[in-house]
C-alpha cells in the first residue's frame, strides 16, 4: 500500500518537475543562444527587456500566446494541430529516464537507453507530419529532407552506443554512471583501455546528436535561406513556439545523454565524496551534471554560430561514407580490445 501511495505521487511530482525543467530550459536557452550569438558577434544581444534581458523570453512567450491562431485553409486540420504535440512529448518522456543525480531520477528503467532511442526517433515523424499537413511546397520539401537526414544519422549514433554498451554491459543509465565512479579517468570518454578511440566516438555521437536535433551545420529542416521557414512555414504563434521548445528540448536531451554516457553523469570525477555529507551529495551531483550538460549546450550554440550549412548530399555522404565506417571500425577495435584484455 505504501508503495502504491507514494509511487504515483512521486511520479507525478517528477513528471511536473521535468515539464517545468523542459519549459524553463527552452525559454532561457533561447535567451542564452541570442546572448551567446551576440557575444560571438561583438554585440550585447537582448538587454532592454528587464535587467540584462532576462525578461525577453517572457515577452516572446506572451506575444506568441496572444497571436492569432490560424490553420491554413485546405490543410489537414487534425494533423496540423497534432504535429506540435507529437514533437514535444517524446523529448519530455526521454528525460524521465535520465538520472539527474543518484536518487533524482523520475523512473529508473533498466532498459533506459533503449527507451531513449526508441522515443528519440518519433520527432522525425512529427516534423514529417507538420510538413505534410501545412500544404506548402517548402514544408513538404523540408519534411522529405528531414526524414532522410535523421535516418542517415540514426545508424552511426546507434553503432557508437553499441561500442559503449559492450564495455558497460548494461542499458540502465544509473548503472552506467555508477560504473564511471572514482576519478575522472574512469569516465567512458577517457577509458582508452576498453576503446582506444573513445574521444572519436564522442565526436561522432556529438555530430549525430546535432543532426538529430536539426541544428547547426545540419539545419536542413528549417533551412532559412532556402526553404523559407521549412516545415514550420505555416505555423504561427504558440504552434511555432512549441516547435522552438521541442528543438531546445532535443538539444537538452542530447547533451544530457552525452554527459551520462561519456562524462560520467553526476559523478564528480574527484573520487568518492565522504558519506557524512549525505543529502548534500545529491545536490553536488546535480550541480556537476548540469554544469557538464550546459558546457555541451554551449558547444552546440558555439557550433551553430560558426559554420555555414552543409549541402544536402554532403550531409548524407558525411554519414554514409565517413561516420558509419569509422564507427564500425571502432566497434571492431573495441570488441577486440575487450576480448583480449578485459
Amino acid at each position: 500500500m505504501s508503495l502504491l501511495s507514494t509511487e504515483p505521487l512521486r511520479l507525478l511530482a517528477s513528471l511536473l518537475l521535468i515539464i517545468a525543467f523542459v519549459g524553463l530550459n527552452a525559454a532561457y536557452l533561447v535567451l542564452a543562444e541570442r546572448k551567446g550569438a551576440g557575444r560571438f558577434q561583438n554585440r550585447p544581444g537582448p538587454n532592454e527587456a528587464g535587467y540584462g534581458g532576462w525578461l525577453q523570453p517572457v515577452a516572446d512567450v506572451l506575444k506568441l500566446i496572444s497571436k492569432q491562431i490560424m490553420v491554413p485553409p485546405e490543410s489537414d486540420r487534425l494533423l496540423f494541430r497534432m504535429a506540435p504535440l507529437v514533437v514535444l512529448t517524446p523529448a519530455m518522456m526521454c528525460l524521465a529516464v535520465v538520472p539527474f543525480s543518484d536518487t533524482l531520477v523520475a523512473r529508473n528503467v533498466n532498459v533506459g537507453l533503449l527507451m531513449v532511442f526508441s522515443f528519440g526517433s518519433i520527432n522525425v515523424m512529427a516534423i514529417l507530419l507538420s510538413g505534410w499537413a501545412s500544404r506548402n511546397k517548402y514544408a513538404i520539401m523540408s519534411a522529405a529532407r528531414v526524414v532522410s537526414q535523421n535516418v542517415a544519422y540514426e545508424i552511426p549514433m546507434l553503432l557508437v552506443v553499441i561500442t559503449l554498451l559492450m564495455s558497460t554491459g548494461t542499458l540502465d543509465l544509473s548503472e552506467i554512471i555508477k560504473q564511471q565512479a572514482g576519478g575522472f579517468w574512469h569516465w567512458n570518454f577517457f577509458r582508452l583501455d576498453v576503446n582506444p578511440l573513445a574521444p572519436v566516438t564522442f565526436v561522432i555521437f556529438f555530430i549525430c546528436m546535432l543532426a538529430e536535433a536539426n541544428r547547426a551545420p545540419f539545419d536542413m529542416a528549417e533551412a532559412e535561406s532556402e526553404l523559407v521557414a521549412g516545415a514550420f512555414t505555416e505555423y504561427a504563434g504558440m504552434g511555432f513556439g512549441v516547435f522552438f521548445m521541442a528543438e531546445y528540448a532535443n538539444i537538452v536531451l542530447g547533451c544530457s545523454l552525452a554527459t551520462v554516457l561519456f562524462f560520467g553523469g553526476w559523478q564528480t570525477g574527484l573520487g568518492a565524496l565522504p558519506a557524512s555529507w549525505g543529502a548534500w551529495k545529491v545536490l553536488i551531483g546535480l550541480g556537476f551534471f548540469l554544469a557538464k550538460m550546459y558546457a555541451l549546450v554551449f558547444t552546440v550554440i558555439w557550433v551553430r554560430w560558426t559554420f555555414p550549412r552543409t549541402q544536402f548530399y554532403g550531409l548524407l555522404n558525411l554519414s554514409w561514407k565517413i561516420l558509419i565506417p569509422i564507427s564500425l571500425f571502432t566497434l571492431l577495435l573495441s570488441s577486440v580490445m575487450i576480448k583480449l584484455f578485459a
Partner: protein
Amino acid sequence: METPVDTSQIVKFAMLDQLLDLSRANSLWPLTFGLACCAIEMMAAGGPRFDISRFGAEVFRPSPRQADLMIVAGTVNKKMAPAIKILYDQMLEPKWVIAMGNCAISGGPFVFPNQYAVVEGVDKLFPVDVYIPGCPPRPEALIEGILTLEQKLTGKRRWPVVKSD
C-alpha cells in the same frame, strides 16, 4: 492614421492588456523583406554597431505567418503592389507596418509628372503605423522608429529622447 479603437472588447482587462502590449512591444519580429537601398540600412541596423537585437527585434522571420512587423524598406512598384498586399494579408494579427525611407512614405525621388511604375506611398495599400523619412534613413532612425512603435503600443516611452545637436 490612428488604428481604429477596438470597441468589440466590452470588458477591458487593463492589467492584462498592458502586459500583453508590453510583451508585444518588446518582441517585434520583423519580416525579411528588403526592397531597395533602405534594406541595406536595415541590415546595418541588425549589424553589430546598431544592433536592434537589444530590443528583441533581430529575429527576421522569412515566413509572414511568424512575423508581426513589416518594415517596408524601399520603393514599392506597381508590379510588386499585389504581392505586398498578399504578404500583408498573410501576416497574422496583431501586426504593424513601418514605412522606412522616402520611397515607402511618398514615392520619394521617383515621383515626377506622369510616372508609370511607382506606388506613391505604401499607405495607399494598407495602414502604416510609423513613418521614417530619409533617403536612406540612418540605422538609428530605424531604431527610433521601433521605439516610436513601442511607444504607440504601450503608451509610454521607456527610453531617453535623443535631440540631435
